[in-house]
């Protein structure tokens, strides 16, 4: 069977996202960091209740207050603090399950690719705390030394008031 270029891209990227999900759920965060470029922007805007006709205001733009707006250094700090033995929000650690699907990928210019996925992430913490986080990721991927890396990730949570006590896990 002939595979189109778009299908080939899909077949290449889906295992990338499955691999990433296992890295997160197995708490291999340093390997997970290797999936990002040095100039990465890891961005989680806020989600507002606005009227349907004002849908353009629903997601807060870059430059407004966001939930997360990390560069590589901040992402590294989040990972490095887990090893200090005193990152109490994650020690004992959360048990997570990242389900990633609905991949749509399309080429951009300069060899970059836009990849959109949906996620359901279950988090269980301590005795009975648990939360289901749903949303989407829109990534810009770039090849660095032959391997795909995430140059920009925009995470859109499907929540207005977050029901979780904190966001101490990675999405």
């Amino acid at each position, binding site marked *: 069977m002939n595979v189109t270029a778009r299908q080939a891209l899909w077949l290449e990227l889906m295992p990338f996202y499955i691999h990433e999900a296992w890295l997160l759920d197995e708490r291999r965060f340093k390997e997970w960091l290797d999936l990002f470029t040095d100039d990465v922007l890891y961005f*989680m805007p*806020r989600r*507002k*209740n*606005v*009227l349907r006709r*004002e849908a353009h205001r629903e997601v807060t733009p870059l*430059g*407004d*207050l*966001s*939930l*997360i*707006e*990390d560069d590589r*250094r*901040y992402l*590294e*700090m*989040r990972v*490095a*603090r*887990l090893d*200090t*033995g*005193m*990152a*109490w*929000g*994650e020690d004992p650690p959360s048990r997570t399950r990242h389900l990633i699907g609905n991949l749509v990928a399309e080429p951009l210019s300069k060899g970059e690719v836009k990849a959109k996925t949906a996620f359901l992430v279950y988090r269980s913490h*301590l005795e009975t*705390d648990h939360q289901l986080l749903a949303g989407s990721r829109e990534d810009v991927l770039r090849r660095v030394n032959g391997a795909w890396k995430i140059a920009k990730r925009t995470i859109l949570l499907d929540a*207005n*008031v*977050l*029901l*979780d*006590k*904190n*966001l*101490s896990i990675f999405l």
Partner: protein
Amino acid sequence: MDATQKYSVIDPTTGKIDRRIFSDQAIYDQEMERIFGRAWLMIGHESLVPEVNDFFHTYMGEDPVILTRDRQGELHALLNMCRHRGNRVVRCDDGNATRFMCTYHGWSYGNDGKLEHVPGTSEAYYDALDKPSLGLVQARVETYAGIVFATWAEDAPSLEAFLGDARWYLDTVFNRRDGGMQALGPMKWLEPVNWKTMVDNCSDNYHVPTTHLSSARVQTRYLGRPPLSHKDQFESPNKHVFVNGHSITFREAPDNTPRYVHGISKDTFPLFLAYHEATLPEVERRLGAFRARHVQLGNHSIFPNGVLGFRLALPRGPLQTEFWHFVLLEKGAPEALKRAIRIGSQANNGAAGLFEQDDVDNWRQVTAASKSRLGRRISQDLSMGLGHAGPHPEYPGVVSERYISENNQRLFYQRWEEFMNAESWAEIPIAPITARFEGTATIRG
């Protein structure tokens, strides 16, 4: 507890507090009445409703409230409850509208709260409906340097009296520049904690080197921020002061040091320093040389539910609090500096904040300990620094001898008792304003 019973939850001679105030539903219900039904509450910022007809949806305790700027530019705080059956008339977080229509039967209100239109006024109501008495319920509104406060209490004193000498300190962050501040936010999340745990924590600098050491360490390593230790905290020249109900900590800053905590790193320090130096003449004119050069507000809370500035702990039952995180930026600051402060604020505090994510399990377990049979009978110990606070020759309020103290927390729970035991505002003590407010800044900005 019935209405005539007086609360005595803290023993001021030992610092022991009755843990049931963190979990008891009847006490919580009375807090909603006697604290959140009475006090001036922070509900928003003028910059969230900059234009005529703008609105911002907020809360006073558990009551949903619409902050509006009406057709004439006046601010209103309107209970978001249709006077017919009680449906909300606004379901958006913010927007711009001249009228709010109830989606149940179509009653429509102006953004000044007046009931303007009722379908079937003649046909169904026989022109007998008393529309002027059926406007949206309005709270009193006053502002401090752009921060909007509201109260349901007709007999409350002015906001100026309510803030009192606390404003002498608050001005050093919220009232520095002629152009005022811009609020961004909020991010909102639900924490399984009693609202008082996060308010009390604002004056708890004792927890910082334990709770937050992991993030402090990596920020020292990656951002070149100063190391954090118990020794630094115990030797800190910073001050801890309780002023007219409000809990303040502040830094006695040497001359010419920048005045922000969040966002300062090795890389951004020159930005902060240049801005500080460039704005010092203006700040001296506004606040007087002493406050401009020596006083820098630190962690603090405005009674009852302000948490580190314009951030809100909104009660949602005794065991839950909805937390709202905003960042305030000086409008006239350079964009690069605004960016550094915004990123520092949301990366440290907030749902995913490197610091704040480690707070919540402590607070929730403090809350949960108040539920179990034995736990709730055993008091909390707030004895730190007992007998080591008093008046100060230079600083208004009750000043602790040391930065690390539980004096503010003890006085916060005494303030709580004053509200809970008062039959009316006339019984709630207000300290007279005695501080010298040098400079041109006023409560209006």
